[in-house]
């Protein structure tokens, strides 16, 4: 498995863990309040810290396990994989953001807009890493 693929798996895991924890907190707070909880900075900071910690520690571990690959630049195939995954995840971002804006037009709820846009960004990043994994494992022009 290439360093690119290991990194993509790690970031998928980190995004899933931090995203699930964040939205779990939002859901439980909303249940207590009986309405959608307003987005707060502290929970965003905790989300960011968890994401950064998991990704930094994870990358240190995989770099220790494969130091040569970690210090090498992406080769031509990996550059194409990164570019193509980024290209398609852009469509995911656009679709999710437009859907979020459409939802806002019906509900006029700023907090809901925040959460759906934030979720869109997470889904977009997830799709990018999953596509990288897919392209690493399949035929690729």
């Amino acid at each position, binding site marked *: 498995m290439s360093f690119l693929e290991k990194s993509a798996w790690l970031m998928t895991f980190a995004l899933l863990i931090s995203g699930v924890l964040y939205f779990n907190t939002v859901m439980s707070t909303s249940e207590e309040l009986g309405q959608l909880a307003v987005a707060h900075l502290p929970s965003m900071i905790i989300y960011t810290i968890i994401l950064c910690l998991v990704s930094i520690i994870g990358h240190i571990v995989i770099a220790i396990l494969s130091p040569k690959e970690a210090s090498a630049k992406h080769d031509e195939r990996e550059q194409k994989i990164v570019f193509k995954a980024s290209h398609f995840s852009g469509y995911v971002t656009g679709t999710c953001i437009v859907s979020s804006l459409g939802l806002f037009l019906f509900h006029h709820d700023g907090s809901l807009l925040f959460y759906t846009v934030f979720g869109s960004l997470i889904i977009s990043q997830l799709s990018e890493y999953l596509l990288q994994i897919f392209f690493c494992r399949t035929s*690729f022009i």
Partner: protein
Amino acid sequence: MAKLLPIANNVRALREANGAITQSGLGDAVGVTRQTIAAIEQRRYSPSLEVAFKISRFFDVGLEDVFSWDE
């Protein structure tokens, strides 16, 4: 099974005929990763002309001795 790309190659046979050079060794020589050499051998990736020439020069053979069109 992954779709085979139309550019066939003899990279694996050439590696084995030239003293069992490893994928990693060939990758280092032509500036790509071991995984990319594996993908080329399995016809999951068609290399750029630059890498194709580097591979043929590494084995000291012509480009068409390494790569061929096979639809």
